[in-house]
C-alpha cells in the first residue's frame, strides 16, 4: 500500500490518522487482554486444577482432617481447701486440632496452699493420645490465701486415636504438697543423691 505523497500532504495526514486510530485499537485490545488476565487465570486454574489456590480447604475432607470426639472435663480435690472445677464440662473437638480449656481454682483457706494436679484419663488407653502442649499440671502451683486463679490446658488429640474411642474424659485431682518439698525433687533424686 505504497502511497503518493501529495504536495500539501493532506491525503497522507488523513491516512496517518486512520492508521494511528487502528493502532490505538490494538493497544486497547492489549490493555483489555491484561485486564481480564486475573479472571482468566483463576478460571483456568479452577478448570485444570493446577495451582489450586483453595487446596488448603480440601484438608477438611481428608483422612488427616480428624473426626469429632466428645471431651469431658472433671476436677477433684481432697480436703486441702482448694475449690477446683473446669470452666466447661464437655466439649466436642476434632482430632488434630488444638484445644484450649481452662480450670478455675480458689483457695478457701487463710494460709498459703501449694498443690500439684495429677491427671487421669478415661478410657485409660486414651491418655497416650492426649498430646499436651501446656498444662498447669506440669508443675506445682502456689495459691495465696483466698486467691482465685484460672489455669490453662492446651492439647491436641492425636489423629491416630483408636476409632472405638468416641469420648475422652480428662480428670485432674489436686493434691496438697507438704510444706518444704522442692519442685522436681523426685526426678533429681534419681540422678543425683
Amino acid at each position, binding site marked *: 500500500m*505504497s502511497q503518493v505523497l501529495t504536495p500539501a500532504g493532506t491525503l497522507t495526514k488523513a491516512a496517518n490518522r486512520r492508521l494511528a486510530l487502528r493502532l490505538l485499537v*490494538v493497544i486497547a485490545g492489549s490493555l483489555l487482554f491484561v485486564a481480564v488476565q486475573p479472571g482468566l*487465570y483463576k478460571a483456568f486454574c479452577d478448570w485444570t486444577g493446577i495451582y489450586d489456590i483453595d487446596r488448603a480447604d480440601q484438608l477438611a475432607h481428608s483422612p488427616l482432617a480428624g473426626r469429632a470426639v466428645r471431651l469431658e472435663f472433671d476436677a477433684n480435690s481432697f480436703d486441702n481447701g482448694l475449690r477446683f472445677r473446669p470452666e466447661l464440662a464437655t466439649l466436642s473437638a476434632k482430632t488434630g486440632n488444638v484445644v484450649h480449656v481452662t480450670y478455675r481454682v480458689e483457695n478457701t483457706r487463710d494460709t498459703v496452699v501449694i498443690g500439684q494436679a495429677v491427671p487421669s484419663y478415661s478410657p485409660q488407653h486414651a491418655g497416650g493420645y492426649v498430646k499436651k502442649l501446656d498444662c498447669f499440671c506440669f508443675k506445682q502451683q502456689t495459691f495465696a490465701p483466698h486467691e482465685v486463679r484460672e489455669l490453662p490446658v492446651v492439647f491436641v488429640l492425636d489423629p491416630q486415636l483408636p476409632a472405638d474411642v468416641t469420648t475422652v474424659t480428662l480428670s485432674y485431682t489436686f493434691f496438697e504438697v507438704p510444706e518444704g518439698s522442692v519442685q522436681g525433687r523426685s526426678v533429681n533424686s534419681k540422678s543425683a543423691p
Partner: protein
Amino acid sequence: MNASHTAHHDDLGHHGHAPTGIMRWITTTNHKDIGTMYLWFSFIMFLVGGAMSLVIRAELMQPGIQYVSPEFYNQMLTLHALIMVFGAIMPAFVGFANWMLPLMLGAPDMAFARMNNWSFWLLPPAAILLTGSLFVPGGAAGTGWTLYPPLSVQMGIGMDMAIFAVHILGMSSIMGSINIITTILNLRTPGMTLMKMPMFAWTWLVTAFLLIASMPILAGAVTMLLTDRHFGTSFFAAAGGGDPVLFQHIFWFFGHPEVYIIALPAFGVVSHVIPAFSRKPLFGYVSMVYAIAAIGLISFFVWAHHMYVTGIPLTGQLYFMYATLLIAVPTGVKVFNWVTTMWRGALSFETPMLFALGFLFLFTIGGLTGLVLAITAVDIQLQDTYYVVAHFHYVMVAGALFSAYAGLYYWLPKWTGHMYNESLGKLHFWLSIVFFNVAFFPQHFLGLAGMPRRIPDYAQQFTDFNMVSGIGAFGFGFSQLLVLVVVFQAMKGGAKAAAKPWDGATGLEWTVPSPAPHHTFEDPPPFDQATAHG
C-alpha cells in the same frame, strides 16, 4: 550546499519561527534533532547504569560485604537492569529509528512529528523518577527488574516511583511505535514496496508491533501491583487470595517479547553493516523478513520458560521447552544469512564491521547458552545462577550494544559530516570485546558451579572467577568512555565525509549530503530499484 540548505529552509514558512538555544531542543519536531536527543539520552543512561554495574562488581571482587549494604546492592542491580533495558538500549534504537528511518524510506520526517517530541520528553522524567528513588526513605526498588511480588508489594515508596517510571516509559514507547509504524507504512517513497524496504525498517516494523502489543501488558501488571500495594486489591498478594505466580505469567508475557524488542533492531543494523563491508547484497532478504516476523510471533508463546521452577505441570514444561527451541530456527536462518552474505565478499574491517562481527560471534554464543537454558531439566538446575547472567549479557551487551556501536560508527559520518578517528574506533572495539569476554565468560563457570545471582556475598571457591569478572567489568566500563572522545572529535572536525563514505553501502540515506541537512526529502526521492535490498 550550505546556501541551498538555507534557501530550502526559507521556503518553509512554518519553520520561520524556529527557536534557538535550549528551546530549539525542547520544542523541536525534527526527526534528526529528536534522534540525536534519544541517542545522547541513551548514552547518558548507559553511563549511569554502567556505573551501577561497577558498584555491583566492586562488591563482588571479594566474598563478604565490603562496600555496600545488601539492600543497596539489590537496589543497584535492580536500577542497573531497569536503566539499561528501558533507559539505554531501547531509546538508543528508537534514536536510530528516528534518525535513519525517514532517510532510508525517503520521507520528510516522522509521521507524527509533535508526538515524536513528546515521546522523547517523557523519558527524562522517567529517568529522574528511577534514579531519584535512590534518595527516598527505604531506597529504590530492590526486587530485580522483574519486580516480582510479594517483595514488590511490600517495598517502600521507591517501588512506586519505579512503577510510575515504567508507566511513563511505556507511554513513550507506545507513542514512538505508533509513529514508527505509520512512518513505515505510509511515508515510503513511491516505488518502495514493503518487500523492497531496507532491513532496518522491517525489523523496526515488527518491533513496533511487539511494543504496542506488549507494553500495555507490562503497564497493566505494574498497575495491578500498585493497587495491591495501596488500594487493598489482591491480584498478587497471597494473603488476600491472590497469586504471585500470576504476576510472573503476565510479566513474562511482556518480558519475552521485550527481549526481541531489544534484539530485532540490533539485527536490523547488522543487516546493513555486514552487506556494506562485504560489498554484496544481503543474502536471503525474503527469508530474513520471514525470520523477523516468525521471531516476533513466536516470542509471545514461550513466556513460561522463565518459570520452569514455579511448579507448572509437565505438559506445560514440555510445550514451553519445544516452543522455545523453535525460536532457534528463524534465528539460525538469520545467522546463516549474515555469514553467507560475507561468503566470497570483498571484506574490509572498519570499526562498524568489527562491531558487527563481534555481534555475530558473541550473539551466537549467547543464543547457544539460551538453548541450553531452554531445556527444562537443565534450567531447573541453572535457574537464578550466574549462568543466566552470562547468557543474557551475551545477547544484551554483545548483541544489542555491539550492534548499536556498529550502527553508530556506520552512520556517524552521515550525522556529523566528518569521518571518525578509525584508530580510536578500532581500539574501542578491541578493548570492548576483550574486556567483555573477561567480564562475562567466567560467569558461565560460576553459574555452572552453582553461584546464585542477585546476592552480594558468595562462597569462597567463587572468589577467583569473580575477581577476573570484576577486572573485565571495570576494563569494559572505562573503555566505553572512548566513544565520547570519538564522537566529540567527529563533531568538532576531522576528514570531511562524502555523501556515501562507505563504498559498499546502499540505501537512500547515502543520497543526501553529509552531514544530513536539517530538512531532507521534502519531495519524495526517486527510488532506484538497483540499490534496493533484495
